[in-house]
């Protein structure tokens, strides 16, 4: 467990929780990134601006962190282009069909004690861990 970073994990997690509380308090919306993004694809009236700005802020928050000299100046994304495309497609399709992702179900849904979200989170975490086991330890 040499890579374990509990303090920055808790601080970052708390910020994500604050963001979710903030969006519900001010705009009455759930901070599920897949749902916010998906809503841009066939938007109703008044549904484009806030969604686009939230996502812009998401990228901007990381950009500000980097400019301010944050510790994580580079990241590593591994996988061939076909794997990246298949992975992205499955994540989009799955979160679209299952009504959201790690933030929507894992953070906001569990915070609302929604049984749907608790089940979804256990299923996607389990499948993700199973997939990593297969790619790293069975095939790798």
């Amino acid at each position, binding site marked *: 467990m040499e890579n374990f970073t*509990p303090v920055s994990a808790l601080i970052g997690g708390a910020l994500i929780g604050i963001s979710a509380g903030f969006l519900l308090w001010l*705009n009455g*919306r759930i901070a599920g990134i897949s749902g916010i993004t998906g809503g841009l*694809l066939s938007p109703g009236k008044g549904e484009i601006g806030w969604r686009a700005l*939230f996502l812009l802020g*998401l990228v901007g928050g990381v950009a500000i*962190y980097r400019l301010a000299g*944050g510790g994580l100046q580079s990241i590593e994304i591994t996988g061939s282009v076909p794997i990246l495309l298949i992975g992205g497609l499955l994540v989009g399709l799955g979160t679209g069909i299952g009504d959201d992702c790690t933030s929507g179900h894992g953070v906001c849904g569990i915070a609302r004690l929604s049984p*749907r979200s608790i*089940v979804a989170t256990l299923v996607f975490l389990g499948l993700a861990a199973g997939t990593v086991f297969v790619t790293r330890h069975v095939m790798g």
Partner: protein
Amino acid sequence: MRSIAALAGGLIFGLGLAISQMVNPQKVLGFLDFTGDWDPSLVFVLGGAVVVAFIAFRLVLKRDTPVFGARFSLPDKTRIDGPLIIGAVLFGVGWGLVGLCPGPAIAALAYGMEESVWFVAALLAGLGIARRLN
């Protein structure tokens, strides 16, 4: 005001993903790899976020309406049904393949990597297909 609130909310979220390092797929894969050199950090991120959101939601939902809106838009589905499970299965496999879920995938665009662009393009395509199926 709704726009400024959304932008600020996104900025705080993005900052949280960067500070917690969840924007780095290797950090997430380190958590998902239970039989390898396991890194429990993601539990602390999710736990911290859930505890704060749980308290915040309780306080916020004492109000009748949000500050800048007519009503709270909360999910109305309660059934644990096929689409929920099938969706979670597909999402889990995709997440495990690359280590990116939707928030970090979009936030990682700030690193300007070609890999991010491929992934997000496919993510949008997947969301588009799901909307047609739903």
